[in-house]
């Protein structure tokens, strides 16, 4: 890197910050006394989480029947929510891993944040496969545990693949996140004044010193993890999509599902990151770090993935027609015109139409609009999963078995409750952990580069930013 001519990008950190100011900007959030507002929101979140606990308790007490499921439609909101949350849970690892491999330095501003969201989203997702089964008390049978029955799980089952995929994804994301946290926890340890924080952060940072011998292994490890997480993140939603694609139900039995699900996952994940980021950066005035450039870049990803999803929808129809399978054709026509058309068209509007606004640079950089779209997108993605899961089951091969699915209040409450869980965790994260990867941010600041220092005086001279024209050609 040192040899080739340095092409200055627009600075990733706005405002004239030095290392210390960055440290303060980020860590003060965790060290300053807790604001009232935080308690307020925490209580709200906890209340919602309580709703989740109650709905689960009642579910275990009464049985799956409290949900709106019926005979053709054996999977309802539980699975929809599972896929939805897992999808959201893709952004974080994707940002930290793939963008890292692509040397997208701008990721450093949001990766910590996004990874946290990922982990919490996956936790919310994990709730559903666990509780949706009829006999929760024997769910451990899906794990290959030796037992007096000599029975083993069935490795042909996509659900079992899911068990491994999701748990692996969760573990690896967690490790990845933690590895990134260690140096910043050390920073907090060293800035903390009260004993409790010192001990807590002290343990968390494992006695990190910032030794460059450590940094050497550390960067290696981080690189390898990124390399591992990249195929992993793609595999997770691929395998989730197998739950449908491997079955033989018209509308499920579709080879396009893996790429289409992954695109959808990135789509919804980025939207969720934006939703949270736009609020967080306002509240904690991190505009210098999470800049509008970030927002714009992410909007471009949303535009691209949104269009990919749209393309996938068209492809489904085309293949259904092209395959000549009457059942496939029937289900897709029914989706658009049948009893669930309302859901289908909501999905189309939110997922395919809404992102198209981001062709305009002005809208891409418009905070309010971005916030709005980011929410619309996630509504749309929920409906996508609804359309896939429910419509296919409700109208499959034998018309005699067709039946309409309508959820009960308990379906809704359980879903609502997971938001409680999510925000409880997320608020705790904002309060106690650095929401920006401090060390990484510092590393991408111009001051961090020895070349930006005068050979003789060792004084820092900021890199010249040329006029953007040649830059346009080079990029």
């Amino acid at each position, binding site marked *: 890197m040192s040899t080739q001519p340095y092409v200055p990008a627009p600075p990733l950190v706005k405002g004239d910050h030095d290392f210390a100011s960055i440290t303060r900007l980020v860590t003060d959030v965790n060290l300053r006394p807790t604001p009232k507002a935080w308690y307020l929101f925490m209580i709200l979140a906890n209340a919602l989480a309580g709703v989740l606990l109650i709905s689960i308790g009642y579910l275990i007490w009464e049985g799956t029947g409290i949900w709106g499921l019926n005979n053709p439609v054996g999977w309802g909101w539980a699975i929809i929510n599972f896929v939805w949350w897992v999808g959201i849970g893709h952004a974080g690892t994707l940002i930290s891993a793939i963008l890292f491999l692509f040397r997208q330095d701008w990721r450093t501003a949001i990766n910590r944040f996004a990874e946290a969201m990922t982990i919490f989203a996956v936790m919310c997702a994990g709730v559903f496969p666990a509780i949706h089964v009829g006999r929760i008390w024997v769910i451990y049978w899906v794990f290959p545990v030796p037992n007096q029955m000599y029975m083993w799980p069935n*490795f042909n089952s996509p659900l079992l693949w899911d068990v491994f995929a999701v748990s692996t994804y969760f573990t690896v994301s967690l490790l990845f996140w933690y590895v990134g946290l260690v140096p910043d926890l050390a920073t907090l340890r060293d800035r903390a004044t009260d004993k409790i924080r010192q001990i807590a952060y002290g343990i968390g940072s494992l*006695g*990190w010193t910032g030794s460059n011998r450590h*940094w050497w292994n550390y960067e290696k490890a981080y690189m390898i993890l990124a390399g*591992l997480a990249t195929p992993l993140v793609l595999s997770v939603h691929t395998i989730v999509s197998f739950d449908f694609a491997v079955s033989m139900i018209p509308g499920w039995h579709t080879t396009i599902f893996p790429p289409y699900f992954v695109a959808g996952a990135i789509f919804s994940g980025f939207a969720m990151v934006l939703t949270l980021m736009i609020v967080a950066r306002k509240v904690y005035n991190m505009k210098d770090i999470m800049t509008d450039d970030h927002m714009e870049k992410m909007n471009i990803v949303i535009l691209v993935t949104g269009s990919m999803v749209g393309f996938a929808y068209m492809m489904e129809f085309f293949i259904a027609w092209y395959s000549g399978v009457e059942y496939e054709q029937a289900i897709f026509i029914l989706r658009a015109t049948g009893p669930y058309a309302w859901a289908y068209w909501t999905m189309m509007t939110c997922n395919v139409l809404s992102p198209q606004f981001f062709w305009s640079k002005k809208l891409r950089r418009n905070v309010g609009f971005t916030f709005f779209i980011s929410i619309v997108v996630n509504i749309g993605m929920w409906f996508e999963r609804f359309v896939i899961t429910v419509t296919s089951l409700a109208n499959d091969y034998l018309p005699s078995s067709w039946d309409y699915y309508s959820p009960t209040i308990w379906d809704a409450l359980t879903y609502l409750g997971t938001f409680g869980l999510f925000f409880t965790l997320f608020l705790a994260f904002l309060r106690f952990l650095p929401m920006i990867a401090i060390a990484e941010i510092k590393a991408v600041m111009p001051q961090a580069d020895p070349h930006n220092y005068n050979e003789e005086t060792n004084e820092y001279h900021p890199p010249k930013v040329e006029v953007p024209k040649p830059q346009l050609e080079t990029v």
Partner: protein
Amino acid sequence: MSASETNGMEKSAALYGMLAEFRNPKELIDAAMLVNKSGYTKYDTFSPFPVHGMDKAMSLKKSKLGWIVLLHGFIGFTGAITMMYFMAVADYPLNISGKPFLNGPAWVPITFELTVLLSAFGAVFGMFFLNGLPKLNNPLFSVERFKKATDDGFFVCIEADDTQFETEKVRKLFEEAGATHIEEVYD
């Protein structure tokens, strides 16, 4: 090596080493080169972020982490295959949808996942192992200024049990390198 170094610290000499602070990454690199050239081996440099080119400056050897990860990945891969073969073919073969007991395609996802999982374990825990972490108590922590090492401070420390270590020589060396602040670290 750093692991061995920390172990060396076990035989607690009163004087642990000499710590010098520098103003910025550039100076830190120069200092590191200087110390390295003057033939010290038991020394280390500290910065709030990895400084580019430090590996050359300190002439650090290539990390062994890659091999650890590969080993773990291999264990994960073979482990998965063996597990599924034992359970689905050897121990209790059940006729499921008339599929063959050894159902290769169906085993791909789980094999992949377990390989990745084990590799990740290798990477993370291997890294901590190589760095001799966790190590909650460190002589350097008793130096007040050293807190800056995780904020905006750049330090070099030469340890007392380096064969060439002599307090004065080291202090002079640091002064040449332009250290803003030099101090002895006691354990």
